[in-house]
């Protein structure tokens, strides 16, 4: 078996006295789409943010392609924080897409996508913009390169945000509820871009309420409830014959909602 792209071992996350993630073990397979589903407050976004090191796990280890992210176990077996530069280096393999897009409002679409190439990687301006245009073309927004975020629709902003992450050639892409802030008619264009990425073999971890996307594009589905990872498996197992009662109940509410939309 090949090395997992991300491996999570015994991860615990506490905010003050409340424990929001308990003893999470998860392997994210390389080149596959892993989906995290579960009710709100189940901890799925927090888990994703731990994978991006935007939240620091209280206990446990995360490795990205075999390299420790954030913390490592020293020779005495103690958990120790890595220096900031090393954290940045490991994190550079990861691209992140946020629910609220988080585009920088004072830069154009092209500026948002080329900024890190110029500032962090010292790529000359012309080359950085050329590479940014390749990504904007990929998400279908080459004709919006000179627009500021305030001049773009939510769906367009999210596609620029995806291009911004892709411009740095990450090995893994994390999506934190990428369509939750969008009008229903705009979710399609974002999901299409994600489908194309998946088809290219990008390793993806997706937190989403789009059960349809998870069922059709996901290779591995993980179900979280109250901070625990209750189930991980292929979509066929999860959706066709959900054996866990809590999962069944969760899926039922989605089916109910779908049925009520038809009614």
């Amino acid at each position, binding site marked *: 078996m090949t090395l997992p792209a991300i491996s999570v071992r015994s991860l615990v996350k506490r905010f003050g006295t409340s424990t929001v993630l308990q003893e999470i073990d998860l392997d994210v397979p390389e080149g596959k789409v892993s989906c995290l589903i579960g009710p709100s407050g189940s901890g799925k976004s927090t888990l994703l943010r731990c994978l991006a090191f935007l939240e620091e796990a209280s206990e446990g280890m995360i490795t990205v392609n075999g390299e420790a992210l954030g913390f490592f176990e020293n020779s005495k077996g103690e958990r120790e924080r890595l220096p900031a530069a090393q954290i940045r280096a490991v994190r550079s393999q990861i691209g992140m897409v*946020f629910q609220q897009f988080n585009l*920088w409002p004072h830069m154009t679409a092209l500026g948002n996508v080329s900024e*890190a190439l110029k500032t*962090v990687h010292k790529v000359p301006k012309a080359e950085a913009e050329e590479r940014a245009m390749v990504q904007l073309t990929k998400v279908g927004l080459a004709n919006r390169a000179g627009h500021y975020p*305030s001049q773009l629709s939510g769906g367009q902003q999210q596609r620029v945000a995806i291009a911004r*992450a892709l411009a740095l050639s990450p090995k893994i892409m994390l999506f934190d509820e990428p369509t939750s802030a969008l009008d229903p008619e705009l979710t399609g264009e974002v999901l299409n871009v994600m489908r194309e990425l998946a088809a290219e073999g990008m390793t993806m971890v997706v937190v989403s309420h789009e059960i349809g996307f998870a069922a059709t594009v996901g290779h591995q589905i993980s179900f979280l409830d109250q901070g625990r990872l209750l189930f991980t498996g292929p979509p066929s197992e999860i959706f066709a014959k959900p054996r866990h009662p809590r999962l069944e109940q969760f899926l039922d509410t989605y089916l109910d909602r779908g049925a009520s939309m038809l009614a």
Partner: protein
Amino acid sequence: MSFKLFSLLVQASVWTIGISAISIALGFLIAIGLSAALLSRKPLYRKPAEFFISFFRGVPLLVQLLLIYNLLPFIGLNVPSIVAAIVGMSLCTAAYQAENLRGGFESVPKGLTEAADMVGFSPRQVFLRIKVPIALRLTFPALVNEAIMILKSSSLVSVVGIVEITRMAQDLASSTYMPIEIFSSAALIYLVICWAVALAGRYGERSLPGVAK
């Protein structure tokens, strides 16, 4: 009122505008440092900045000017009164601008800096490329407001002997016995200057990159 009297007031307005412009600019530079100190986790930086601000916001500018004007020679700095005026006004506006900037920095959405972290920005790059431009945008209207306040407060520097609009008007009124005409003219000149600053501010705000037109 003769044209000659009016032109004397206009000439005096050069002092009003000059002192105000220099004070706003110097105050802004000081305010950037102060706001950074205010946001620091280290009390060693934060406490002095807090003390500075509470002093300059809590003492009337008139008293500050008189204090600085008398204090500088006392500690052996014999500087022209224009310097005392600029020092006083700069420090005062710095205190107000620092609080504006602090609010601006705190209002930068966390997601925008997280996005920068994710693409590998160092803390310094996040500050310069993301936080500063966005905080400036958020505080721009307050900055224009502060510029207008300072323009009007500059009338107080007459107490340290600078003949700006207000002082010139007082001198002219007492020598010509035409206070109503002269103070009305002074008011008109202040109004025009402040109106121009407000107009420039609105234009400047609209031309900031990325502001919805």
